[in-house]
């Protein structure tokens, strides 16, 4: 049933995109595509936890309308389970010089409980070169949540780049099944030092990542005998194609 649902939605999006003019004569809008993985990394925790983590997105479309996939995941290599696995498909359109609005669906399929969400959000570049991705979600159970992603690329040189990032998650109601409590639920702070090895396509990096759950969400984790915070040394590749 869920599979079928996904296909239907995918088909609808494809139909919307089909009316977008294709590449060709100058008089038509051009279509573009791209893939980027901000994070694709191996994490080693302070208690020797091992994780594989990715945060990637791909787009296809015109200046006016794009289809974007955003995917994040965290695989626990010790237990061989997917602690997090989420995929989003959104349509995106400019609303100002520097910001786009987006709307679509998100499907979380980690080991454990699945969740569907509807999502709206904005993404773009704030003053002082801060990349912003802010989203609201409403799950199939009617629970609302929000996420804010901020990132800044600091140029040590033109190829060595220090990237601080922060992700904040908040929930407007409790969803015990997926162990999220009301309020600020979790945060992740990262600092990564990368080197542009091949153009901007492949940039290996090292860094640190600190994750923490808050409030009821932290309590849920504790009840389950899980950590509510963790620090990782990370090493990975930033990719862009």
């Amino acid at each position: 049933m869920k599979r079928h649902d996904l296909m239907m939605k995918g088909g609808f999006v494809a139909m919307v995109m089909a009316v977008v003019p294709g590449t060709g004569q100058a008089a038509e809008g051009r279509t573009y595509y791209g893939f980027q993985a901000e994070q694709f990394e191996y994490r080693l925790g302070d208690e020797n936890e091992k994780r594989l983590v990715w945060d990637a997105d791909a787009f296809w479309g015109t200046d006016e309308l794009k289809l974007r996939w955003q995917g994040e995941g965290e695989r626990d290599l010790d237990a061989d389970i997917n602690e997090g696995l989420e995929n989003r498909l959104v349509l995106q359109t400019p609303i100002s010089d520097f910001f786009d609005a987006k709307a679509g669906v998100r499907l979380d399929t980690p080991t454990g409980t699945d969740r569907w969400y509807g999502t709206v959000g904005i993404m773009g570049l704030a003053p002082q070169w801060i990349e912003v991705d802010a989203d609201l979600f409403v799950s199939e159970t009617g629970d609302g949540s929000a996420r804010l992603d901020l990132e800044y690329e600091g140029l040590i040189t033109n190829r060595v780049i220090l990237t601080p990032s922060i992700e904040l998650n908040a929930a407007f109601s409790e969803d015990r099944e997926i162990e999220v409590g009301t309020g600020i639920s979790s945060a992740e702070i990262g600092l990564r030092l990368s080197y542009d090895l091949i153009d901007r396509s492949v940039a290996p990096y090292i860094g640190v990542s600190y994750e923490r759950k808050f409030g009821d969400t932290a309590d849920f984790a504790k009840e389950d005998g899980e950590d509510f915070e963790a620090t990782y040394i990370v090493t990975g590749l930033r990719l862009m194609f």
Partner: protein
Amino acid sequence: MKKRIVLRALLGALGTVMLSAPSFAATYDLTVDYVEIDTGTMKTRGIGYNGSSPGPTLRFKEGEEVVINVTNNLEEATSIHWHGLILPYQMDGVPGISFPGIEPGETFTYRIPVSQSGTYWFHSHSGFQEPDGAYGSIIIEPQKREPFKFDREYVVVLKDKHPHSGERILRNLKMMPDYYNRNQRSLGDFIMDVRKNGLGATLSERADWGAMRMMPTDIEDVQGFVGLINGMSPDQNWTGLFHPEERVRLRFINASAMTYFDVRIPGLEMTVVQADGNNVQPVKVDEFRIAVAETYDVIVQPKDDKAYAIMAESMGRSGYGFGTLAPHEGMRAEMPELRKEAPLLTMADMGMNHRDMGHGDMGSGETGKGDMAGMDHGAAPSGNSAMGNAAMDHGSAGSMPGMDHSGMAGMDHSNMAGMDHSAMAMGNRADPFYAAGSGLTPKAANGGKFLSYADLKAQKPLYADRPATREIELRLTGNMERYSWSINGVKYEDAEPIRLKYGERVRFKFVNETMMSHPMHLHGMWSILDTGQGKWNPVKHTININPGTTVYSETEVDEPGQWAFHCHLSYHMATGMFRKVVVEGGPAVATLKNGN
């Protein structure tokens, strides 16, 4: 490797022989082919003509009709645009405007009645074939004797050859507008600036740029190219031979996709005699900047029996072309020292109004500059008959660096009108075609004379001088962060054509609201650049408009049909800084069929 060099030298010599002993055959055959472009350090697949990139030098004669059979051996459609040539619009070679294009395997026959003379070029107008190598040069012999003498001549075609294909470059720019900008200010620059200007000033300066989300280093969108001279990289050292004391005419053509070059020949004064194919009153310069798609003919007279360097540094200093003028084969001139320090844009290039300026709609027009432009109109009511607006506007600004714009409104206009125009001639004062305080204002490497548009005067007016019938404002607009470019905020695919009436003389007002220079090229009809010289205003096909400036050109609408009008930077043109121009009325245009 040695063999290749010998072969190249032979080919070069052969080219020279062909140049000096031209045949005036009126029929040409060109094939469009996939070729390998080898710069010595990289090999890429590109597109060329008759099996090579650049393509051949076509030599026409004023007054003849040339027939050019173009056979497309590619797996994609192609086209050839004859840049700067005045011709029936169906022969202009812009797919979707002049004709449908040339399909794979098809031969299209261009018939061009040659009604002009000078240095021109040709290139594909399809996709990114031109950045990928589809370009060549044109020399048109005049019917009458030229007003200058030379003993030998060379075409010097400049090109920014990039390892990436045009398609890939645009896709990368769309993903990340600063993908190719490796000249950005980093921590080291920050520390240096703190040492020089203090922490507070440096932070505040960074914050100003950060608030706009713009980069002062954003001068060359596409870095990482190798500068080519006649298809040869600095290592491959294109060489033109001369005998000492000979007068050598160099026909410079900038066939680059994106790059302006600052050209000099250390030790030689260059006399500029032609711009965009039209003779100008000779100007002696030490260096000149050639915008994309422009041509300049210069004459040099090397006196010594030694090798001279032709140095073409890119405007943003991220690359260079290099060649040699030599008295003997096999010589390589000593490479002049590169000016490593890249220029930085200033707030002047941003239109000065840096606090509340948006990306797409930042307006030099809304600030003090707008007042000045208005004032200029009042002072020069008959348009180009008096002091040119562009020259006066910026000239006066140039003489007052750091002036308070708000005070300009109160300026005594009558004084402006009475200004001594001859005093405006370019001396050591700032170039009026750059915003006052612009970071792009060029300086000659030897501290000498750098050519300005203000120096260009027509040798012989092409048209009678008359006031323009109307003015059309074209604001050059864009959004660097989205890498989309437009005119009056509207991209080509969303825009109505510009409609002109046959027989009118229109005045185009270009207001550059972006932080980049744009070489605007009107097809099919001349652009008379207003340098404030009245009937001596130079006649061009490509007009460069620097950031934060307003430039005027006038066009006698004397060709019927429909034409392209666009920024000649390949990726600006492709993303929307483009218009179709429709000329209404005039003599009926015969329907020209391919092959007949």
